[in-house]
């Protein structure tokens, strides 16, 4: 259950590839800076990213539930902006798939949004939704190049939403965002979610699906490679 990009057109493929190349080559320069590409104009890179270890995850879904709690004040798997999917009858490691927003260097959701509701935060570069501007067209969901869209539909508030690295959590008093804490990272019982300010490799899954298993994990008898 790898987090494979959904089937895409050649044009989509070129878009993703070019974004990835830029991410790879300019990674260290991008945070705080600006870059240009054919159709993209001056979208600053996010100053933070979530990384997950799908082989470490215990499948408790606490990350998903706390996400909805911190943002919406309610507990709801469907409103969580990080999603854990499981098949108990599949063998490890294919039994768990985690979908977290990649804060893409080339954010297809941002460019697809007709009202700029989905935008990059000026201070932090975090890709997030201004609900008051969202017209509910769901183009962000369609534009997200991943099989399970990381831009999601908040059916209760009737707007799109996505991971903002806890930049705006009306129901959690902790300072969030790239310079603060993220609720999912804080609650994960096995520390299978990490935050980084360094832009991950954009090509493929490897930059975002990482190995967070160390000696302490090995001591419990689990694989670390």
């Amino acid at each position, binding site marked *: 259950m790898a987090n494979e990009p959904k089937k895409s057109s050649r044009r989509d493929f070129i878009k993703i590839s070019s974004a990835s190349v830029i991410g790879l080559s300019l990674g260290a320069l991008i945070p705080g800076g600006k870059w240009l590409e054919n159709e993209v104009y001056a979208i600053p890179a996010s100053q933070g990213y979530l990384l997950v270890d799908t082989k470490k995850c*215990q499948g408790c879904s606490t990350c998903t539930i706390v996400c909805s*709690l911190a943002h919406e004040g309610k507990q709801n798997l469907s409103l969580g902006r990080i999603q854990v999917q*499981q098949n108990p009858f599949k063998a490890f490691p294919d039994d768990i798939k985690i979908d977290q927003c990649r804060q893409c260097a080339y954010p297809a959701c941002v460019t697809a949004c007709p009202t700029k509701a989905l935008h990059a935060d000026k201070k932090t570069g975090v890709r997030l939704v201004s609900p008051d501007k969202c017209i509910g067209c769901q183009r962000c969901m369609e534009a997200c190049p991943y099989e399970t869209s990381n831009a999601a539909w908040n059916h209760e508030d009737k707007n799109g939403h996505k991971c903002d690295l806890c930049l705006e959590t009306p129901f*959690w008093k902790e300072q969030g965002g790239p310079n603060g804490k993220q609720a999912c990272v804080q609650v994960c*019982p096995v520390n299978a979610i990490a935050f980084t300010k360094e832009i991950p490799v954009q090509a493929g899954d490897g930059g975002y699906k990482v190995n967070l298993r160390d000696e302490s994990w090995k001591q*419990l*008898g689990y694989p670390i490679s």
Partner: protein
Amino acid sequence: MKGYQGKILRVDLSNRKITKIETKKYAEYVGGHGIGSAIFWDLCKDKTIDGFDPANVVTIMGSPISGTITPSGSGRCEVTGIGVQSYPIGWYTRSNFGGRFSGMMKYAGWDGIVIEGKADKPVWIDVRNSDVKIRDADGLWGLSTWEAQEEIWEVVNKSVTKDGWKALSSSRDAGFTTQKPAVLAIGQAGENLGRSACLIHDAGNGAGQGGFGGVWGSKNLKAISVIGTGSIETDDPNALIEARIAAKNNYAYNFDDPKVGWNRFSSSPTLGGFYDREEESRPQSCMGCIAGCRARTASGLGSESSCVETIFYADFNRRKFGKQTRDAYVATDLLQKYGINAYEAWRGLEYLEKLYKLGVLGPGKEIDCPLDFEQLGTAEFAEEFLRMTAFREGIGDDFAEGFVRAAERWGRLEEDWKTGILVYPYWGCPDHMYDPRAEIEWGYASIVGDRDMNQHDFNGLYWDPTKDILGGKQPYLSAEEVTKVIAEKLVPFENNPKMLDFSLENAYSEDMAKLVSWTQIYGRFWKNSVLFCDWRWPDLYNPNAPDNSGLTGDEGEPKFLNAIIGGNMTFSEGMETGRKIWNLDNAIYTLQGRHRDLVKFADYIYDIPYDGGLMGSYYLPGIENGEWKYIDTKGRKLDRDKFEEWKTKYYKLEGWDPETGWPTRSALKTLGLNHVADELEKRSLLGKE
């Protein structure tokens, strides 16, 4: 009503009628078992019926913490109704399972589900948010629990998808989900009315005790599927998040600095099992758990099984091959697929082997049984034994009755209870490894209750010091230290360490009555109604805390509940609700025919010295010659007369009639159960003051 969805689904299978019960009518019981018992009281008019009777009422209840970030509790679910496993009659009973069913039930908008009646043909119940359908199960009947779930996933997941998200209706305002429905199903054992048949959810979550699989089979109910996209309203989200983070940082397993000590809430996320875990695996947990106790494996075998499911065949397998082989995993998976109670299968198979070795059982023997015991330990033997049990093939018809009833059919019950080769100490239920002669409160709470209680509150007082002592180590905490730390938490009997004196001299004391009472009321409320997990709660001692004092208490269980539902319930107030539920349950037992004269262990508990169990020695804290120490309980047996005296003390402590064990009006009245007292009085079953 924050934390609730406000309605309980009521399904009458006989008339295929779907209605709702307002949760607020039962909110004083909070959730789980308490609401289940109160609904059972109201809806099951004749409580003397057999568990297989269509009029039996089965409840499947979540709680306010279901589907939330409350650590180790969010995924538990409670089942109640008249069981078919216990002996001599099927008591009103309970079972409890984990996974994600209760959470998904809440997201679908339901606090619980009540099943009544019997369908005229096999059915399953399809719950998608508020849309509830009773569907024909023609294509599902005959399938294993795993196959049935996968079939149902296919049916439900055919819904419209949008960019990897599934819609539950044509309206996008109904929301999307990435999740599979949570399905609770019976296997072939349940279809064939096995008294040891379970309800199974996902790969390894089972409501194992009570024979509810057989009860569902008798109702022609194959499965219930729930999926939803709704929200659980929460009173103080920030307080709940902070409580969860504090629990992780201060009480849970610390990966960076793991403490050497005795763990419970602070356990690492590793398999709580008795077979070797595959190295290529991950920990796997129920929804919201702070530390999973199961694994999913690279071979795909043995996934999600833990504890007794893993012990069921491991020893037979090791004896056969000199080491554990994959056959142990295969056998465990078969148990889950057929949906058979692991304790019945384990203790039953031990019993059959003993009869075989006695020359009583085998091909052409007095008890004619085709099983080839030379192959015991192989996957093929397990398959044959479990298949015979599930399908009632040949002598499997006896196995499916549970091994106490099987022994009765074979004319051996009295003798085998006397010699102790049939280790079923209470109510015809298999021994849990925690023998009444050693771990007194486990046995007593089971026999004054309705089943093997399976409540590990004080069970660490055996495992932890025994492992240390047999390993040649000084116990992490001395008997005096650990009993002092725990005693502080035993509200409403707090600060009385003598309650934890497991010496034989103290076995018949009022202190032991208090320990049993605490166990019952904590279990009835915090564990089985609020639904904190038995494996992680109560947190009585914890090496991460400077004084080893665990999270249980006002800063523990109620803190999470209050953050969700609002209010300021104290730990003590919760215990009082537990007392109410425990009294209600005992009123039901009384209506079913319970009398103190029935409350007796199997003969071997009184007549045969204890062999020391799994590790050969069974240490527990106790006072000897005026000093606290760890006492090896091996070699002990209980005294019949003294146990009878203890029962009198216990009934008096609960405010019940010591002559009968029946609840009294004054006890019921102080708990707001006057209507229950009226019913008992009408039937001349009210205890004398």
